[in-house]
């Protein structure tokens, strides 16, 4: 009996509707990722749209299956965010002394606001693993695929970035 082609197969053969259907559930996490990385919702939507178009253009090079589509697409979104930031290059950000404003472990509403400010002070590459792991709730191996590093390296990056937000974090808590 002849099998019907999957959505991925149809997309790979040029069916834009199938591709749109495949990435539709990924748009929300992609937007969240972009919004946190860029701190700008309009720019985030632009980045997601551009990433979707790039993913569509390069789908033939994608060697995974539907299960790895999310990490592939999110890595394109992250790259698109970097590109967006690149266009703002030379707008050197001068920040107040970070040490003086480092948050405490007490996460009262005020402290949550401190946490947000602390997140805002993280570099783009520091935010990325935190968003993937803590916010989008991706498993560690998928975080690693998105970052294109080993799971051990991904864990290390999450830990290092999270430690900038919470000084007493232990490596075991990032597992």
């Amino acid at each position, binding site marked *: 009996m002849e099998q019907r082609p999957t959505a991925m197969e149809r997309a790979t053969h*040029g069916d*834009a*509707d199938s*591709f*749109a259907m495949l*990435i*539709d559930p990924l*748009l*929300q996490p992609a*937007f*969240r990722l972009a919004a*946190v990385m860029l701190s700008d*919702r309009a720019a*985030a*939507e632009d980045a*997601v*749209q551009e990433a*979707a*178009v790039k993913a*569509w*253009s390069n789908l*033939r090079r994608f060697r995974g299956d539907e299960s790895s589509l999310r990490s592939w697409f999110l890595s394109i979104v992250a*790259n698109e965010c*970097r*590109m967006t930031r*690149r266009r*703002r*290059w030379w707008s*050197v*950000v*001068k*920040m*107040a*002394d*970070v*040490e003086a404003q480092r948050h405490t472990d007490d*996460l009262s509403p005020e402290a*949550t606001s401190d*946490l*947000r400010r602390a*997140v*805002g002070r993280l*570099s*783009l*590459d520091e935010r990325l693993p*935190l*968003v993937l792991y*803590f*916010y989008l709730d991706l498993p560690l191996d998928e975080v690693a695929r998105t970052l*294109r*590093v080993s799971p051990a*390296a991904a864990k*290390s*990056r999450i830990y*290092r970035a*999270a430690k900038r*937000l*919470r000084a007493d*974090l232990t490596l075991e*808590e990032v597992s």
Partner: protein
Amino acid sequence: MSRESFRHEISRAFDDMSGSPSPALSARVRSALSEKRQARPGPIWMAGVAAGLIALIIVGVLVASNLNRHLTGGVPAGGPTTSPSAVATATPSASPSSSPSATPPSNLPAFVCGLNTSLSPPPAPLTAYVSDVRTGTHPGYDRITITFTNGLPGSISLKPQNSATFASGGGKGGNVTIVGQAGILVTMSSADEHTAYSGPTDFKTGYAVLAEARQIQDFEGYVQWALGLQHAACYRVFTLTNPTRLVIDIQQ
């Protein structure tokens, strides 16, 4: 605070930052996709890219050879001494080079004092490889230049501090104290200093302000350099191309 509580709080902070996408995003993406056909590389496209690459290589080689002929450190006119040795020789005369300046001094950013600085450089390679580190002293400033292959690091940050003691990186723990009374911590992500660089990782310069520069981390894509200063000083940071490099000037 428990792990779940931390996860919850950080999610809330991210939620505050992102919110939800507009309901039109899905339709907007579908519309963009329907307008864009999948790329199908063809002979014309490939020829265009090949021609562009060849032109870039030729221009790059010409510029690089021209700069190398004249410059001692691959930096703008009035740039640093380029002694690769740990004890770099000062050239206080710093007569302007006759080579074309990649970035004229008048275009350099102003010195900043006591502020952290973050740069998000344009290229986003998976890893930028440090290929050279040099120091030099010039009238008005001391300089450290870090050269890269494969583009600039993903991010670069500079944090001034009031001592020359730095937390040791690479998960080793402990502190590292270098020469000086103040310091600047230079952190580069998506960078690697062990693949393409085998030169000194500790420069005891003895310059007027920049007393020592020492690598304190090269681990998991993070490279950190600790700069020991004779006293707290203003600095400026910028990047140059051909070759790609990060330049930090410490005001004397």
